[in-house]
């Protein structure tokens, strides 16, 4: 809660001064734990949570060698585009008629994605740039259930987002 309070103070609207870097991984770990809870709740939901629609979701697979070969801009674009797509997919569930428990998980996930974007901004990670017309977007996947969507959500946060924040250049300045 203390870490969230720090995040709220830093990210409150109207704050013109630049954010101080949030390098403490416990902030992201908190969001990841809430994503675990949401995934578990959706998995238990099963039939009640099955919606006959497809969601566009980011790819979550990480090859450590390939990831290390990418520069910070490529990694940032990978994470920012994935967060953008996830946010759109989960936000589309707010309009669906879900139980209160599931609705709270959906709302928390949307809020956490916004907070993660603030953390990335504090670390001077480049913002998401939508592809221009004719340009190729990052490779995505299609998911057909809410349960599968929240699985993508947790895997994306644990994988690519965690790797990007853990190795942010701003947080490792002066360390050889």
């Amino acid at each position, binding site marked *: 809660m203390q870490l969230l309070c720090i995040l709220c103070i830093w990210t409150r609207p109207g704050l013109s001064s630049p954010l101080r870097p949030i390098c403490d*991984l416990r902030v992201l*770990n908190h969001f*990841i*734990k809430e994503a675990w809870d949401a995934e578990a709740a959706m998995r238990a939901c099963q039939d009640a949570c099955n919606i006959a629609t497809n969601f566009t979701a980011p*790819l*979550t*697979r*990480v*090859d*450590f*060698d390939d990831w290390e070969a990418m520069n910070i801009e490529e990694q940032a674009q990978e994470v920012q585009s994935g967060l953008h797509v996830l946010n759109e997919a989960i936000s589309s569930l707010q309009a669906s008629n879900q139980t209160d428990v599931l609705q709270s998980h959906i709302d928390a996930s949307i809020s956490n994605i916004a907070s993660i974007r603030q953390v990335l901004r504090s670390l001077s990670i480049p913002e998401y740039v939508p592809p221009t017309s004719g340009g190729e977007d990052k490779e995505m*996947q299609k998911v057909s259930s809410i349960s599968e969507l929240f*699985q993508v959500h947790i*895997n*994306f946060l*644990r*994988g*690519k987002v*965690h*790797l990007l924040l*853990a*190795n942010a250049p701003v947080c490792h300045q002066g360390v050889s």
Partner: protein
Amino acid sequence: MTKMRSDRLKIVFMLCLAFITIGGQHFESKVAQLLRDETEDIKCFVEVKDLTCFWEEEEERNNLHDQYTFTYSYENKNKMACVVSSLSLLGSNKTVFFCKLPKTPFFTPLDVQVFRDGRVLYSRSLNAENFWFLDPPRNLTVMTSGKEGQLNVSWLPPLLKYIDDSLIYEVRYAVEGSNMGKVEVIKVSTMLVLLGLQPYTRYKVWVRVKPDGVAYKGYWSAWTEPVLGVTQPSGTCFLMLLETKNLFLLKKLWPDIPSPEHKFPGLFTIYKGDFKEWMSQNNGSMWGRSVHVYTEELPSPLEVLSEVSLTSHGTSQREERQAVEEDKEKESERSDSGLTDRWQEPPEAYCLVEQLRALQENPESLSQSLLLQSHDTYVTLNQNSQGDDERQVDDVFEETLPLQMLFTTAGRMSLNTSHSDLGSLQQSSGSGRLSSQSSFEYPNHTWPPKGPGYAYMAVADSGVSMDYSPMSSSRIAALGRHRMYTNDYKNEIFLHKWPLSGQHTQSGSESCMGPGW
């Protein structure tokens, strides 16, 4: 040449085998542990960056791994095959088949299957990042923290780049030899201070590691090898130990210098070291007390008389006498006793030096002899003094020798001495000339009866103190026939107290008498 080459190949093969064995110890132990703990048919774990999946050999089979096929797929892509290998576990009769996935995909569902004869034998869906099986922490160190009841424990994390911020450790510690232990869990940090420990106690410490379960999950690693640490003793005990050690070191570096102060009560405290003043105040009591310090600085005028011939031990005695002579030369300036003439060395082994040596070699003789008493003093009253004295003058024994030989003799003392005071001897001297001589006599021999004119005072000179006490008349009679040595002590006090000492100091005679033990 062929044999040499064959030997080299054998050596290389053995080295390779040893390398493989050592390198695979962790792998095999992990396989063995999962065989015990994991219930899934396909058991998987990640060591560094690659996922390994294995399964047990079915019964009724003959270890034909070629019949097995292992496939994996992810993100709805086509299945990919993996090369199957076999491993026979040491210590058990089990054989497992395993596959190590090249370029393992993380953070995405992975579908794995085992086929045999075209049919699916086992299948499983898993995320590789949930199955880390790390090696134990490295370089476990346990040190005292300098504070009571504490130990500092530190270690190094596994060599993994991305996962080191997501690890937790378990530190187990127990008193050595005890089965009861405690466990501490610590996140990320690779050091821990154990608190509340018993003082001055040996503890065993172990550490293991696993992912923290947030970004990564996995199994507990094996425990490290235990490391011993000893806590500091409690404050009181430690201070006592420290003080004892310091005192011991202090005694070793600066040993106490013996002081004769206790023999001269008040000399330093009252009279500020003024010996003359102290002597004048302690005139009467001094003669009943051991006299110290005079042997080197102020030689006594007493002569040690002996009738024992010491011809048989001339050489050794001469060596001793040569050493003594050197000391004597140093004192010649101070001495006015005329100790320049030396006795011709007696042929037999009754020189004082030999007596000393014998006593040192056989200290029991001191008690067994029943003879050596420090309080006996002998003074010879030489009736035919002139001639005998001249002869005896030649037998001078260096007074500066450590005269530790103590002896008593039974004899009769013709002098009426009530106390070991040479002055009293002087006063009570009877017929004949009282010679300021002392003699050292040894029990096994008796003095030759010199006649009624002889009186003897046994003198015991320890080299530091001289005890003078009268000798009983019965002891005089028991004195054996010995050639007597005279021993002049250049002690001006004695010179002061004994008028006749001047004659003998001029003669410079010294004697050493003693029996053969």
